[in-house]
């Protein structure tokens, strides 16, 4: 496994807010990573530090083995697509795509043209006159057609409708299969992308909670449901991520994979075991307990 990005002990604070707290991780070459977490968890800050747009005060960041800041050799192989991208006054969508073609060596104009047709992007319209969806499409098209060896998508689909989003996922997968590269998708829409991801990185309040293969992350928890007393007995001694109850019944999400004996024990106690989707896992790991008691 080649690590194209290696981060150790990275910390960053803005005034009195800790954005990143001793973060260490690595991004694997030619892998699609999901960077998940709530708003303000530190995803964008992390990506800004990895792409040389921000300066790491503590810790080290190595991209392609070097510091990314002001490093043209490294930066020319990175594409960072973010929602809040600013564009020069009076630029049209066409101008943006043309400009991008000058800076990304792997730029595929044919692919870009195809995407423009599929996303129905009006090339002659000025950026400031584009709808939210069209603006997102611009970012997405640049990110895909650039074929940069390391590509970050920071929630670039916020403006896209469901059809356009699916189009993005499909094209991303297709192109990634033909031209493998390292991709990082930062998103809230976890269920939509869950099947695309090979690795999952979950960040919460500046700390890494999960950094694992998607498959393992998916099986990292199980929901146990049934009569409240039986559930509590089963859950005793295990790490509980989430608990909810209704009357005499309760459902508890416990961390860790259950062994065959555990499953047998659950069965015997009349408990139902069900898997936890990646989205639920992320939600339950990053929020607190939720009790709904009905007398």
């Amino acid at each position: 496994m080649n690590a194209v990005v290696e981060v150790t002990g990275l910390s960053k604070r803005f005034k009195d807010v800790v954005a990143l707290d001793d973060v260490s991780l690595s991004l694997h070459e030619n892998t699609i990573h999901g960077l998940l977490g709530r708003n303000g968890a530190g995803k964008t800050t992390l990506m800004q530090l990895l792409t040389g747009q921000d300066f790491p005060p503590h810790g080290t960041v190595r991209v392609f083995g070097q510091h990314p800041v002001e490093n043209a050799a490294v930066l020319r192989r990175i594409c960072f697509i973010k929602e809040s991208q600013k564009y020069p006054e009076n630029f049209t969508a066409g101008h943006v795509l043309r400009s991008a073609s000058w800076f990304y060596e792997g730029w595929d104009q044919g692919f870009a043209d195809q995407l423009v047709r599929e996303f129905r992007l009006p090339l002659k319209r000025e950026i400031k006159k584009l709808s939210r969806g069209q603006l997102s499409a611009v970012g997405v098209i640049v990110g895909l057609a650039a074929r940069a060896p390391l590509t970050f998508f920071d929630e670039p689909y916020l403006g896209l409708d469901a059809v356009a989003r699916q189009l993005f996922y499909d094209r991303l997968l297709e192109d990634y299969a033909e031209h493998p590269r390292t991709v990082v998708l930062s998103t809230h829409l976890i269920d939509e992308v869950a099947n695309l991801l090979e690795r999952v990185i979950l960040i919460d309040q500046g700390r890494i909670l999960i950094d694992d293969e998607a498959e393992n992350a998916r099986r990292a928890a199980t929901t146990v449901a049934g009569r409240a007393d039986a559930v509590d007995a089963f859950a005793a001694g295990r790490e509980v991520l989430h608990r909810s109850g209704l009357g005499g019944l309760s459902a508890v999400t416990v961390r860790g994979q259950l062994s065959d004996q555990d499953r047998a024990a659950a069965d015997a106690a009349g408990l139902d075991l069900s898997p936890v989707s990646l989205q639920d896992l992320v939600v339950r790991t990053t929020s607190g307990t939720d009790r709904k008691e009905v007398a």
Partner: protein
Amino acid sequence: MDEGKPIFVQIAEQIENDIISGALPEEGQVPSTNEFAAFHRINPATAGKGVNRLVDAGVLYKRRGIGMFVAEGARARLIEGRRERFQDEYLGPLLAEAAKLGIDRQQLITMLEKGKNA
């Protein structure tokens, strides 16, 4: 795609089903990993894992430069494997559920007869 089994296992099982049903004949070519990935909308690496699982089990084999093919005798082997698991995966739960509901052996046999003709 259900949440229970890992995706690559589901892919493998789907291919197995297609082989058993004859949709994928022996010595016939199987879609490429990228095609599977695009069709199911999953990561190519995951699709690859599923395919490799079957290669390791001797169900599929690779012809260099051409693609993946169904191994000779794969169908028969798969069916035999499934038969062995039939008892645990289907009969076991059926009998347990019947016991829960108080359905005795005679009633079960009657139901089976009826079911066969349905």
